[in-house]
């Protein structure tokens, strides 16, 4: 062996052990470069032998055969390659797209609030109230997908040794098992409806939505299936809808609140004739000012109901409250401290009224009246014809026609009477047209009940009760002395065109004495 030639040929392994390269330097005796020499060099580097190496060496030698060392310099050829390892992937939780968008918006809003910056120009055309930043989810809703960490794939170096892959890291995201379930296939599903909260490395769903500050541009409108608690107030023109109850500690401005159950205002609403409160059950408030309120059950107000339009399907239980201005319509009883004001604010109180049902009764009575009139007219005409002894086919025809008319009118009345009876019974069951005033019933106050309207011509000191007597007339009962005075002695009475009078009802439907 020629040592000099031997020094001009080498096989080297790369630092990552993934390649072995044959190098032949200029000046070597070309005859020295053969497969045995190259193989020996490879073996010396502990390169894994085998058919693959033999093949690559042959290829190298073929390539070397055409290679001009003088002109081109050293010859290099990769005679062995390893397989790189593939590191494992870390685990990942990907939020559903719609939730991810809200999350991004929430971060953006928070940043804007921090920097006290205005919305982007791009955002100017959007209604920010509509873009809620709260991730509201329903029971059964898919929240996202977990991709578990993978182990990775080991590699092999040119010497045949294993190159270990780095396994992925399993993230420690904790899902609250009470509210979130993780399926084997990685799907993450909400078990309950509520607000999805991702805090650090934990996620849970809160069935109650807590707004620590205001409902305003930072939150957008709220539409939440569960209870909503607002610790500050609610700004103008914002909406809060709850599938349960709403509690607000601060001021509700000209906003719209809808709750399937109760609305509780620790302060009140200053609606400026635009704000609305709709509750499926009760409304509790310190005060109501210039708002429209629909109450499915009872209304409890501590201080005053001022310039409001209120419809209450249950009762008004506000013995310390004043009702001043506006129109309060109550199906059940009404108790308050004062009605009207010394300054003469026009205040209307409708008792024993459910506006929708009342309207139905009124309209049905009108229809029944028309049908009765039609039947009576036909019968009168038949009587006229009967009185005429002259018989003719024309007369017979006219009589038949009139009989038909009368019969049709009567048959149309039957279902209307049944409907009227049903509706009226419903009103009677719930209706309790009674007003109790603990303090003062002011002059000018208008009380409507039983189809009558009474505008009081003098102020009356309480405690008193206004109710209907056995014949449907309004009376005033002094709760101290027990004396009963017809309201017509203290008020100007007129028919209440917006309601029906019990006198109009068919006799069978009027309340028994």
């Amino acid at each position, binding site marked *: 062996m020629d040592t000099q030639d031997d020094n001009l040929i080498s096989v080297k392994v790369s630092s990552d052990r993934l390649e072995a390269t044959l190098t032949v330097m200029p000046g070597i005796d070309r005859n020295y470069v053969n497969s045995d020499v190259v193989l020996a060099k490879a073996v010396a580097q502990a390169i894994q032998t085998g058919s693959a190496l033999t093949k690559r060496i042959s290829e190298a030698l073929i390539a070397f055969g055409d290679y001009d060392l003088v002109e081109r310099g050293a010859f290099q050829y990769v005679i062995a390659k390893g397989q790189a390892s593939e590191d494992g992937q870390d685990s990942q939780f990907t939020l559903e797209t719609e939730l991810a968008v809200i999350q991004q918006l929430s971060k953006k809003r928070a940043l804007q609030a921090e920097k006290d910056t205005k919305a982007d120009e791009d955002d100017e055309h959007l209604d920010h109230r509509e873009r809620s930043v709260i991730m509201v989810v329903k029971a059964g809703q898919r929240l996202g997908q977990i991709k578990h960490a993978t182990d990775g794939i080991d590699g092999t170096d040119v010497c045949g040794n294993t190159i270990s892959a780095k396994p992925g890291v399993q993230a420690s995201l904790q899902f609250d098992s009470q509210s979130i379930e993780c399926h084997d296939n990685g799907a993450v599903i909400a078990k309950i409806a509520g607000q999805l909260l991702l805090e650090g490395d934990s996620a849970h769903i809160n069935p109650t939505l807590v707004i620590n500050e205001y409902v305003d541009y930072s939150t957008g409108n709220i539409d939440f299936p569960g209870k909503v608690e607002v610790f500050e107030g609610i700004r103008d023109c914002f909406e809060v809808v709850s599938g349960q109850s709403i509690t607000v500690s601060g001021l509700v401005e000209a906003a719209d609140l809808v709750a399937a159950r109760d609305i509780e205002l620790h302060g009140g609403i200053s609606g400026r004739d635009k704000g609305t409160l709709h509750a499926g059950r009760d409304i509790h408030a310190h005060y109501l000012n210039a708002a429209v309120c629909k109450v499915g059950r009872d209304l409890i107000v501590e201080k005053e109901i001022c310039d409001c339009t209120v419809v209450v399907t249950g009762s008004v239980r506000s013995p310390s409250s004043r009702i001043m201005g506006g129109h309060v319509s109550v199906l059940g009883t009404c108790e308050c401290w004062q009605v009207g004001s010394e300054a003469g604010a026009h205040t209307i109180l409708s008792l024993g009224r459910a506006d929708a049902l009342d309207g139905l009764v009124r309209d049905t009575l009108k229809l029944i009246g028309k049908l009765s009139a039609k039947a009576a007219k036909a019968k009168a005409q038949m009587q006229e014809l009967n009185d005429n002894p002259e018989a003719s086919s024309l007369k017979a*025809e006219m009589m*038949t*026609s009139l*009989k038909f008319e009368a019969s049709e009118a009567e048959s149309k009345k039957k279902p209307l009477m049944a409907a009227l009876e049903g509706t009226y019974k419903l009103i009677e069951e719930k209706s309790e047209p009674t007003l109790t005033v603990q303090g003062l019933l002011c002059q000018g106050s208008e009380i409507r009940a039983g189809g009558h309207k009474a505008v009081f011509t003098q102020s009356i000191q309480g405690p008193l009760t206004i109710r209907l007597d056995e014949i449907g007339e309004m009376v005033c009962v002094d709760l101290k002395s027990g004396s009963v005075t017809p309201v017509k002695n203290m008020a100007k009475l007129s028919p209440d065109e917006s309601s029906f009078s019990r006198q109009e009802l068919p006799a069978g439907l009027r309340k028994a004495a």
Partner: protein
Amino acid sequence: MKIMLVDDSKTMRSIQKSVLGQLGYSEIEEACDGQDALSKVGAFQPDLLLVDWNMPNMDGITFVKNYRQSNKTTPIIMVTTESEKSRVIEAIKAGVNNYVVKPFTPDALSQRITETLSKKAA
């Protein structure tokens, strides 16, 4: 069920149509006299006829006699002011199945129709 109304009075036809509507019958053809009825009866093939007596062009009895030459089974109710016994007998001889005297109530007409159809079914 197909029903033909033969009466020169539009009002009467309207009342009868309304009563039939209440009984659930909606396939109804109208004719203004016996001649008109004869021209329509072949194509319409009614299952019941309500026929007035006194009509222009061809009265009810003449129509019934003509109709019965080719159809012995379809029930016919005479709806008429003629109430004398002899007239009733004449109508039955001509082939009428039942009789309603004007003025009638919608209930009376309805009853006659139901009666006639029940008898036919039996």
